[in-house]
């Protein structure tokens, strides 16, 4: 039976095609001139360049972290190109009609048509291709509501005060090795600002695509929800199937001011490498949000791609009564390795956090949950609930759980539940006896296991996530 399961998990990666686009790509290597070059390509003001250079100088003194439960060959940071953009984007197309059709076709193939009339109703998209944003849809409609949704490079030009105030306020430029690298060389990403009391009229989403060979993608996303506002944001990621490993080191900062709410969902499907572990994306991501009084940040992630995942979307619950949530499904198969989880830092009184993590390991993969719940000295009445479930498919994979709990307040309550289970032969047999084939059976069992997380995704994407899991699991059943 487990052989059948293995079959069903054999990989098939639908997004693995390469787009034939002529690009301007920096030669491989990283020094201050490269950073000046990136800054110049983006027409950045002096303060931004200075900020980057300081990040770079602190990065040079830092050591790559090695505490994660991951094993990979050292990354040669001088062998990567830090900027690549389609030539056609140089003249900054004013409308969709001026965008290279090959770029539009790329997104269409991925199921994300960028013509507004063809899009999912109610979802605005920022499409980032290698180092630049190709197009951002529905901008006018959003502007009517006062919502700013644009590439971060454009925000630096147009809204320097907002960017200056908040960039690095949640993830400081020297926060950690990968965040420092990102701060030095980040190229594009999205900027969102929701004004006071506004409920964003549409779902916002950014779709990241790495195309160029030997290029890293370093995007930076900054979302600021002003007092009493509300926004739901989703990011998706894919990359071509290549034999070389590629680096993706992103930073996401969320700022939820008093009474604001941010819901941030990720469907991560970077190329995971082949079954022998050749190729695939190294995904080193720093995501963090700060909640002021009564604010709420909810992270939902569905992680099915990447050869290496190092990612801990976190909440700093600074304001009283603020709420942090983390819902995660991480699926690893083949030779994939994931070390992912969250940090909930309770500083304010009566702060609440919920962590629901579902890890699914198949093939020869390794899947680790790593989470910190910290109750500060002033967090009177704070509460956390953590549920951490692992599902094993087959007998050559591994699941690990590393929970850290630090409490400096006697009135704070922390609950942790953890389970590990296997897709049992009994469950498979029941499904097959009712007429379902083995693949369908496993995908149904896994989907059931993830249900608590999927129901947190915006509706349009919950279906997508279920399907993605199905594709990922194809061939993994026995």
């Amino acid at each position: 039976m487990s052989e059948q399961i293995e079959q069903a998990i054999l990989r098939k990666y639908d997004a693995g095609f390469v787009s034939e686009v002529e690009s301007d790509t920096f030669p491989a290597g990283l020094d201050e001139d490269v950073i000046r070059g990136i800054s110049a390509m983006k027409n950045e003001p002096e303060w931004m360049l200075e900020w980057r250079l300081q990040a770079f100088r602190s990065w040079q003194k830092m050591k790559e972290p090695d505490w994660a439960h991951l094993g990979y060959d050292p990354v040669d940071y001088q062998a990567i190109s830090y900027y690549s953009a389609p030539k056609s984007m140089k003249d900054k197309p004013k409308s969709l009609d001026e965008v290279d059709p090959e770029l539009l076709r790329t997104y269409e193939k991925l199921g994300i048509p960028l013509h507004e009339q063809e899009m999912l109703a109610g979802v605005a998209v920022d499409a980032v291709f290698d180092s630049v944003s190709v197009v951002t849809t529905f901008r006018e409609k959003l502007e009517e509501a006062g919502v700013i949704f644009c590439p971060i490079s454009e925000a630096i030009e147009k809204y320097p005060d907002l960017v200056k105030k908040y960039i690095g306020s949640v993830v400081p430029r020297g926060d950690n090795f990968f965040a420092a690298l990102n701060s030095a060389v980040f190229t594009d990403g999205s900027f969102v600002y929701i004004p006071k009391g506004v409920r964003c009229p549409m779902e916002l989403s950014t779709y990241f695509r790495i195309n160029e060979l030997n290029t890293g993608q370093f995007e930076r996303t900054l979302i600021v929800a002003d007092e009493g506002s509300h926004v739901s944001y989703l990011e998706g990621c894919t990359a071509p199937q290549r034999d070389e490993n590629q680096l993706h080191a992103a930073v996401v900062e969320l700022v939820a001011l008093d009474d604001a709410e941010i819901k941030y969902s990720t469907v991560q499907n970077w190329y995971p490498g082949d079954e022998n572990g050749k190729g695939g994306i190294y995904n080193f991501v720093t995501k963090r949000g700060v909640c002021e009084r009564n604010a709420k940040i909810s992270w939902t992630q569905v992680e099915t791609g990447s050869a290496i995942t190092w990612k801990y979307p976190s909440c700093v619950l600074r304001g009283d009564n603020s709420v942090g949530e983390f819902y995660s499904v991480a699926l690893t198969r083949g030779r994939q390795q994931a070390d992912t989880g969250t940090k909930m830092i309770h500083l304010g009184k009566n702060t609440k956090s919920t962590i629901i993590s579902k890890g699914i390991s198949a093939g020869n993969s390794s899947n680790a949950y790593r989470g910190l719940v910290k109750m500060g000295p002033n967090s009177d009445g704070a509460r956390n609930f953590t549920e951490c479930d692992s599902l094993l498919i087959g007998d050559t994979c591994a699941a690990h759980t590393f929970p850290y709990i630090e409490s400096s307040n006697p009135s704070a309550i922390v609950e942790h539940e953890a389970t590990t289970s296997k897709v049992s032969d009994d469950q498979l047999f029941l499904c097959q006896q009712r007429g379902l084939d083995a693949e369908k059976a496993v995908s149904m069992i896994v989907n059931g296991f993830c249900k608590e997380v999927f129901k947190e995704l915006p509706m349009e994407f919950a279906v997508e996530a279920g399907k993605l899991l199905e594709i990922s699991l194809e061939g993994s059943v026995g």
Partner: protein
Amino acid sequence: MLSIKNLHVSVEDKEILKGLNLEISEGEVHAIMGPNGAGKSTLGYLLSGREGYEATSGNVVFAERDLLDLEVDERAQAGLFLAFQYPVEIPGVSNMEFMKESVNAVREARGEEAYTAAEFLKLAKEACKHVNLPLDFLKRGVNEGFSGGEKKRNEIMQLILLQPKLAILDESDSGLDIDALKVVAEGVNSQRDGKRSFIVVTHYQRLLDFIEPDFVHILADGKIVKSGGPELAKEVEASGYAWLEKGEEATA
């Protein structure tokens, strides 16, 4: 519709069934009784294709196909249904979704059109009422947190929805109180339409008070040692299985 000839079955290299013969025609209900360890459950698992149950010799023809050549799901699609003695839980997968996918997989394999969500909902509600389960059981995870009796009734609900040619009930009476037993029996009886066949595996005669079999077989030490009509079950009820151990030969 089912013909078993000289069937030998091993589990982990131990022979459990040792030359079993059984002929079942359309519409017949056959009860298989016997002491614990006689191989009653093995027969159901072997017929449904469970891994680890190996037919070392003999053959089985079901609905004019060589049953032993088919995969588990193909046997189900061909119309073979097994009601489990201990149904397993599938957390997070709703009963409704599970059954809809199953029924449609079977229909599609038969070249019939899949039910729409609305069509299936109607059928599922009827089936749910039929086995006396509250409708919210359709939304709950498959067997998740169900009591023993609820699980058994849930199995009968699946039988009703899947409309098999042959249903094998593996000790569907075990652990049931008399009321639950009646519900299960009524569910089964409602599916007796003169064409559908049943194999009712049970240790006790009790279930057969409610599901009247056409034939009763006594299985002991891997073989059918005696066959007869419903009266045979009553004999067992009166005298137990002790006579088997005295080495009395089968007379049927």
